[in-house]
């Protein structure tokens, strides 16, 4: 039965998180946008303690195939929209297993899950991270040059990773871990790419720098260098075997089907923050949006506002659908890319338009709108750029392999 009503449990949780976002995150927004690379430790402690009480799936829920239908993924999306409504940079920096955790959940053995994920249940705040991008390759993750060479009981990693979200917190500032993508056989192309979990403070791994960014400045983006970094053999996620097929690589890529709707949900939160602020400002100024008025009576402002609303809601429903499919155990590769491509673009357009509509007020750093516009853009880029997601959508709707459509 087609239904758009959130379950009472998800709705209650949303309301609770909304209060938290408003009372705890908004007051920190501007400060940690300007004090880049400094950390709101008190806020982290609070979130860490709260998440131990009711764990939030920051990296997306688990596939429903084993557990039967659930609402985990949709619940996560709704929660993350609220946190990002509060502040997307702070949301991204909250101590949690992150994308590294999602990779371990998706491809790890029970032993690996215990070793890398149990730590998030107790002790001091910790972070997990994922290191894929390199200075010479981004979207083309099959072109990875970081190497993993077997040496007795160890893998030896060498290479440089950039744009690692929370990488600094994961490997130097807490007892976390990072999942690193590296090739075990350069000649094998995609089939040679494997993921390795690397524990915090492992010798040979150093944070070489932090990026200065346009937005989401509360979240650190690290460069991590691996120089003869030795990790146990058992830290490889999935099989070490290099098969002729690209199954292993596809397995790692499948993580994105879980995480893309979550990124889309974060985008929705930023967009809604901008939309809410614009609506309130218009209301205070006595501007009313006349839904249903004919074209010749609508002002440009009314039209723009309605476009923003519809655009954002379209992205939200695509996101909910991708989550719902995951919760039902349905294959959602196409739908995950659709919602990510749509939400990343929609939130970029919505926030840019909001700044335009509010004029000098929107452009001023006295209010948060300009920050939301800067924060929004990352959603059009990370976790697969808009164009990479369009490429995936195109392959799916056309029935093409990556060779046929590159």
């Amino acid at each position, binding site marked *: 039965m*087609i239904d758009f009503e959130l379950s009472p449990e998800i709705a209650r949780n949303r309301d609770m998180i909304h209060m938290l976002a408003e009372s705890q995150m908004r007051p920190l927004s501007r400060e940690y946008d300007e004090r880049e690379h400094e950390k709101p430790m008190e806020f982290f402690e609070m979130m860490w303690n709260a998440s131990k009480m009711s764990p939030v799936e920051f990296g997306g829920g688990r596939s429903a195939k084993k557990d039967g239908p659930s609402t985990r993924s949709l619940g996560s999306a709704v929660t993350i929209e609220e946190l990002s409504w509060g502040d997307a940079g702070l949301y991204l920096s909250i101590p949690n297993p992150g994308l590294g955790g999602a990779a371990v959940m998706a491809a790890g053995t029970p032993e690996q899950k215990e070793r890398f994920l149990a730590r998030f249940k107790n002790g001091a705040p910790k972070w997990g991270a994922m290191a894929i991008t390199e200075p010479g390759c981004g979207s083309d993750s099959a072109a990875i040059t970081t190497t993993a060479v077997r040496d007795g009981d160890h893998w030896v990693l060498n290479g440089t990773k950039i744009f690692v979200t929370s990488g600094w917190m994961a490997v130097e500032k807490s007892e976390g871990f990072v999942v690193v993508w590296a090739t075990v056989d350069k000649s094998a192309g995609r089939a040679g790419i494997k993921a390795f979990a690397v524990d915090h403070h492992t010798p040979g791994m150093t944070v070489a720098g932090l990026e200065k960014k346009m937005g989401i400045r509360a979240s650190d983006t690290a460069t991590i260098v691996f120089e003869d970094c030795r990790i146990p053999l058992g830290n490889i996620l999935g099989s070490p075997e290099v098969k002729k097929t690209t199954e292993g690589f596809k397995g790692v890529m499948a993580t994105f089907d879980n995480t893309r709707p979550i990124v889309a949900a974060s985008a929705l939160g930023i967009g809604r923050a901008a939309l809410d602020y614009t609506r309130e400002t218009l209301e205070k100024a006595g501007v009313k949006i006349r*839904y249903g008025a004919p074209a010749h009576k609508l002002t440009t402002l009314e039209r723009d506002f309605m476009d923003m609303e519809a655009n954002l809601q379209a992205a939200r*429903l695509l996101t909910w659908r991708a989550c719902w499919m995951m919760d039902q155990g349905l294959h959602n590769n196409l739908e995950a890319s659709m919602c990510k491509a749509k939400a990343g673009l929609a939130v970029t357009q919505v926030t840019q338009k909001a700044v335009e509509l509010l004029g000098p007020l929107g452009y001023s750093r006295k209010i948060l709108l300009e920050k939301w516009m800067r924060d929004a853009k990352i959603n059009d880029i990370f976790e697969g750029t808009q*164009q990479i997601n*369009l490429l995936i959508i195109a392959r799916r709707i*056309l029935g093409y392999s990556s060779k046929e459509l590159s």
Partner: protein
Amino acid sequence: MVSFQPSEEQQLIRDTVASFAAEQIRPAAHEADEDGAIPGTLIQQGWELGLVQSTIPEAHGGAGEAISAVTGVLVAEELAWGDLSIALHLLAPRLLLYPVILAGTPEVQQRILPAFGGNEFRAATAAVMEPRFGFDLAELATTAQRKNGTFMLNGSKCLVPLAGGAEHILTFARNEDGTVSGFIVDKGAAGITRIEREKNMGLKALETDEVDLNQCAVPAANRIACDFPALMNRSRVALAAMAVGVARAAFEYARDYAKERKAFGVAIAQKQAIAFMLAEMATEIDATRLLTWEAAWKIDRGDDATREAVLAKHYADNMAMKVTDNAVQVLGGHGYIREHPVELWTRNARGFATFEGLAIV
């Protein structure tokens, strides 16, 4: 609980209508557009699907199914995927029947409904739009004045489907207190004149008419005191779903063409310039369908769905225009030739931004 899965019954109806659209409607669409006429046998076959009669209450000879906007949008998308003109023709009797079922007095229901439960297509329609710049649903220029137990209707209407042969035209007019009611004008009533069959950019297969009302006297019992704004939300959602159907037709045709057509040694779909257009088209079609479902769902809950319906229709108007235009673009010069249906879909798609009240769920 959020779900994107139609009920089993809805899925069954959707599948039935989709087959009919593929096997009967689509093959007839091109000729109907060229001829300006839809074959009577096709209309009769469409009638036999029971899409109109099923919601007539059992007491009046129907199947007594509840009117569901969600089921309505599923059906509307599939029919319009076949052809917009034929879809609007088949569903035109709903324009009268739904308001009568939703808001008519028992007497009116008894007088009107039983005749529509038969085995043959019976034309009926509604007159909403008016032929002038500045048409506004909130300020209809057609008026109804109470006079000696009747209502005198005065004004002009346009884009009235099937006005020529309709048994009844539900004419919407402004009451003296500013509210809007529907008035059932029976076939052959004095004071109503069908000016001419319209010649429009699209919808060429569908008979739409311009109609004049000059001191047209309607018995007081023929007034349907409906919630006009709520009715227009049902229309917006129906038209938005049809826009999705037209856009989907164009997208699928362009997608298949792009896989066949070779340029520079590969299928043009293998070029990102084309592939990305198709990817965006597919995404926007899905997005619009979900907006439409949400608005329909809200209507079925009995909530005020004005905002959702307006946004869904507005979004759908733009989406259908863009997607059908892109489909012509993918086909290039061939897209401009009437042998291919994409130019027909583009002409039909342009109408949505102007249409109000041409369909209902």
